[in-house]
């Protein structure tokens, strides 16, 4: 387990180092907590895509606590900041090793190019390693070669894939996959969907239809609907989250591409405002580079001093 955490830490701290190091620098350079220091922290959070509103909230909370609990030392501030960032994320009792349903149905949604298909492959691998039988559904029937892409991943990971022709109705693919689940003994079904901008009403309606079709077969499903967010995305991530929650019933986030220099701070705003937990983070290109999200670890990584 240690190596996983190390990797996550490495993934985050490497990427964060450039900007978020400034926090610890700013903090260490000053012994006393004053307005200038708080302002500097505000600047640093904003440049990490945390967003104006969420930043204001965090800084306000920190200010309040500094006043109430009479912190003087800047080292204290460091700790409070981390706590406040971690606190922004809603508590989550999701445990992937104890799935509450069989088959457990996961629907993957998101805008174009966030890494849905790659994340699906990594997820499939995770569940497979836990001894679960995984079935994939090639619900992206729109983008050129999306089915071939998922097929290649399915071959590599060695899981089953249900697919139709390119251009066919994604809801029909989903229906077939759910029908195939029992005879094939699938315990986890992961459904891919085409990337779509959250502003396209007809495409968002299509998601609703997919959801309806799933519920026709399995009334409580999808058990997990993951929105795949690109860590490089800015404040638009909030709009994305709002619209996908509305159309697809998103109840978890996968934050991808955290191995770059982007900090993915927009998730703090999303967690704060929309109360949606982050379930996984993508920290690299290797198959085991999708890891469960840990708010403390994330906050640590953000403000780590090296």
């Amino acid at each position, binding site marked *: 387990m240690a190596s996983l955490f190390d990797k996550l830490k490495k993934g985050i701290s490497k990427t964060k180092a*450039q900007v978020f190091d400034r926090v610890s620098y700013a903090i260490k350079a000053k012994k006393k907590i004053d307005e200038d220091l708080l302002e500097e922290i505000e*600047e640093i959070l*904003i*440049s*990490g*895509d945390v*967003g*104006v509103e969420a930043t204001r909230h965090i800084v306000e909370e920190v200010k309040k606590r500094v006043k109430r609990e009479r912190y003087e030392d800047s080292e204290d501030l460091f700790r409070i900041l981390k706590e406040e960032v971690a606190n922004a994320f809603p508590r989550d009792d999701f445990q992937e090793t104890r799935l509450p349903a069989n088959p457990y149905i996961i629907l993957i949604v998101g*805008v*174009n*190019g*966030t*890494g849905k298909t790659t994340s699906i492959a990594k997820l499939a691998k995770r569940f497979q390693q836990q001894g679960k039988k995984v079935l994939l559904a090639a619900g992206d029937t*729109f*983008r*050129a*070669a*999306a089915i*071939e*892409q998922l*097929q*290649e*991943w399915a071959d*590599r990971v060695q899981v089953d894939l249900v697919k139709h022709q*390119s251009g066919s109705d994604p809801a029909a693919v989903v229906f077939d996959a759910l029908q195939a689940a029992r005879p094939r003994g699938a315990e986890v079904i992961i459904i891919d969907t085409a990337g779509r*901008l*959250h*502003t*396209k*009403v*007809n495409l968002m*309606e299509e998601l609703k239809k997919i959801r309806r079709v799933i519920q026709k077969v399995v009334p409580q499903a999808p058990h997990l609907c993951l929105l795949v967010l*690109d*860590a*490089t*995305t*800015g*404040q*638009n*991530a909030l*709009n994305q989250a709002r619209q996908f929650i509305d159309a697809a019933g998103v109840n978890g986030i996968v934050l991808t*591409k955290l*191995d*770059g*220099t*982007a*900090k993915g*701070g*927009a998730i703090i705003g999303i967690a704060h405002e929309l109360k949606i937990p982050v379930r996984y983070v993508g920290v690299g290109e290797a198959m085991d580079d999708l890891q469960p999200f840990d708010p403390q670890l994330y906050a640590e990584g953000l403000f780590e001093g090296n």
Partner: protein
Amino acid sequence: MLEDLSSKLEAILKKVRGQGKLSEKNIADSLKEIRRALLEADVNYRVVKQFINDVQEKALGEAVLRSVTPGQQIVKIVHDELVRLMGESNTTLKFAGIPPTVIMLCGLQGSGKTTFAGKLGNHLRKKGRHPMLVAADVYRPAAKTQLEVVGKSLNIPVYSTASNDALQICKESIKAAREKSCDIVILDTAGRLHIDEEMMQELQLIKRELKPQEILFIADGMTGQDAVNAASQFLERLDYDGVVLTKMDGDARGGAALSIRSVTNRPIKFISVGEKMDALEPFHPERLASRILGMGDVVSLVEKAQDAIDLEEAEKLERKLRKDQFNLEDFYSQLQQIKKMGPLEQLLGMIPGVGKQLQGVQIDDRAFVKVEAIINSMTPKERRKPQILNGSRRKRIAAGSGTRVQDVNQLLRQFEEMKKMIKRMKKMKFGRAMPPGMFPFG
């Protein structure tokens, strides 16, 4: 929230009126508001800082104009400054003296390179060129297949081999292009992180060997603060010639454009606005400036209307309107023309102030479907002479179109009202004052 930047500034600056001049003190609050607007639009933090300083310098000491409110005046200064920063006349592509011209695309994963490769090919072919697409992404599963499918759908040749050496593929493609007498090759390289040393070297190698006339950096229009990092790292390695912003058909404000422009000083050459292969637009700094400030995009709307509307049709319609012969057939063809302009929602989003108010309101093109179905269920005679539509005809139409008689009645009422409106407008002034085909309907 930003839709009302102007009105917010208005409120803040009310007191400035009558003070004669914009001073550091009386514009401080409005600069704060603008700062916030830019940050929410994803303009990089440091770029915003610099920008606000510049604007402050420009605004200070300016006399408060009588003709506009101080709020409008500041928005104008900000807008002009944005346009100045992002503007660049040199947005054309360079072509080689001896073909083929090599255009190389690069960028992060998922920024939209492959789709853009298709769009660019399509765009260049429309200009009479003969492009060839080169599948140089040897890493992502099925990336080559994707480009092949894109090429096939456009009927543009794609150079794709089983090799997993991107450089070799690129080199070979030049020969292939000559053989097929293609005068442009578009290299679709793999997406990569700007901190991935090995992958960045691969790009440098391709650049050195192929000597592209044009290297374009493809950036996701929704990128946040990190846009500056990726853009400057790619610039350092490849010294690219221009930037393409993709996924701009969403509701991201596109502040990344300003960030990238300020740190790289490279022009934005294209804006990509949809999944269809013709969804590519040249870059207009004044439009993006409005968008970043959340002020709508009227120019694009009018242009879209001009694109979609058949002039001949419009003139025919105009004659009919003059003679008061407008009937349901014309109404129907009007509908078709508006539909051609794109999703209704996207059009409405371009109207200043409408965007945010309509958020969550379901406007979709299905509103049209009902109307179309009703008109389609009429006989040609009925369409030309709606006055003959009696009760039993209406019943038949409702049954035929899967609607209710009330729906048919409603449509006819709307149609009558529209005719009346047209008559009134005719009395006022009919002619070129209004873009053809842009009058309201049902």
